[in-house]
């Protein structure tokens, strides 16, 4: 058994072979954005989940027009194959991919293993910042089929549809409101959305080189917890980055058709007055 949509995943060898291809744009998206400046894949550009992809004022992503500006500055056209990679097992690479899909960009891929694997293999990292001729990118209307807002999440939990909580076990239990060793800020209450099953994101990747586990292992992991292909599924974490990795796994590696990422996640739910919480 292989991944259901293997086109969404490439390996380091593929990226190394396509470094010079003008129809391929490689984008680094990290938790620690300084990593790009320390050295990146030759020809790669950078997006930062906070300073590039977030709306400058509201708590939201870029508007469609702002996204068009970002994509144009990166020299991307709707036909460009965009390959994302990053640190932390590709959390923010998946997050950026998810946003590109939200605005209708079709040809997107994740570099399996991300920055960690590229580095482990001793492949080149450079400091030169490339520039590409500006395009006039036209985005599509947002694809709401991959993004869940709080109202829908409330309906989902009350109608007992499946939710996947991808945070660490102590965040799920309510003992912590952020990851272990991270600042414990961002939410007034701890716990999880009622009915959500705990499947930490990390179970989907190999710890050694950050690559994804096999289709068999992934299917056993999610189906073993009652998350099946025919379900309507919402995944969440603390701010939506770890759950975009799980979203990517379910949607493209396992081919589940109806999966949404709730990017408001615990920093929204754990602060909402009147929202149901289970501990």
């Amino acid at each position, binding site marked *: 058994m292989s991944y259901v949509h293997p086109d969404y995943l490439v390996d380091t060898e593929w990226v190394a072979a396509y470094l010079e291809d003008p129809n391929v744009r490689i984008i680094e998206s990290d*938790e*620690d*954005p*300084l*990593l790009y*400046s*320390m050295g990146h894949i030759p020809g790669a550009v950078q997006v930062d989940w*906070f*300073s590039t992809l977030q709306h400058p004022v509201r708590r939201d992503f870029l508007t469609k027009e702002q996204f068009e500006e970002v994509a144009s500055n990166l020299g991307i056209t709707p036909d460009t194959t965009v390959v994302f990679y990053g*640190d932390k097992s590709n959390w923010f690479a998946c997050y950026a991919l998810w946003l590109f899909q939200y605005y209708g960009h079709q040809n997107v891929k994740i570099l399996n293993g991300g920055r*960690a694997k590229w580095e482990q293999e001793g492949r080149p990292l450079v400091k030169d910042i490339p520039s590409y001729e500006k395009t006039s990118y036209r985005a599509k209307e947002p694809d709401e089929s991959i993004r869940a807002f709080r109202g829908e999440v409330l309906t989902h939990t009350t109608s007992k549809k499946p939710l996947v909580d991808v945070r660490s076990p102590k965040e799920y239990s309510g003992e912590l409101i952020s*990851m272990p*060793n*991270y*600042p414990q800020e961002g939410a007034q209450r701890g716990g999880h959305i009622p009915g959500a099953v705990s499947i930490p994101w990390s179970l989907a990747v190999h710890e050694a080189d950050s690559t994804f586990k096999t289709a068999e292992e992934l299917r056993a992991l999610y189906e073993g917890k009652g998350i099946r292909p025919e379900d309507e599924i919402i995944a969440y974490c603390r701010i939506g980055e770890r759950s975009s990795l799980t979203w990517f796994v379910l949607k493209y590696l396992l081919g589940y058709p109806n999966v949404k990422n709730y990017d408001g996640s615990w920093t929204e739910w754990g602060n909402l007055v009147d929202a149901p919480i289970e501990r």
Partner: protein
Amino acid sequence: MPLPPKLQEIVDDFASMSREEKIETLVAYAESLPPLPDWLREEREKMDPVPECMTPVFLFGEEQPDGGVRFHFDIPPQSPTVRGLASILANGLNGSKPEEILSVPADFFTPMRLEEAITHQRINGFIGVLAHMKQGAVKLLQNKS
């Protein structure tokens, strides 16, 4: 009490930098953070963890013959931002007396306008690292009394 002169100099430098210069300078600081000395690598249990940081950060304050403090850090290369911030503090405070370290205000970095280059959550790493450097300084003072 004014900031130790070296730290003041770094703060003033950053205050006048563009966003790009701030990033380049942070990278340079991250790259120049010295590796742990061998003696400390062998006695790593002496080091204090800094749990406020998103990455595993360990530090140790070593007393110098003249009473100044020299800080050693162990921070993984995968976390250049925290390495850069710790390196700024080490450059700005190494050699200072424990009393001088304790007098550094927790918001000393505000004029650096680092928020132009990195997110607030990461800048908070500064507060955590500085707080633990102060704890190191307190330990040295207690050992004396």
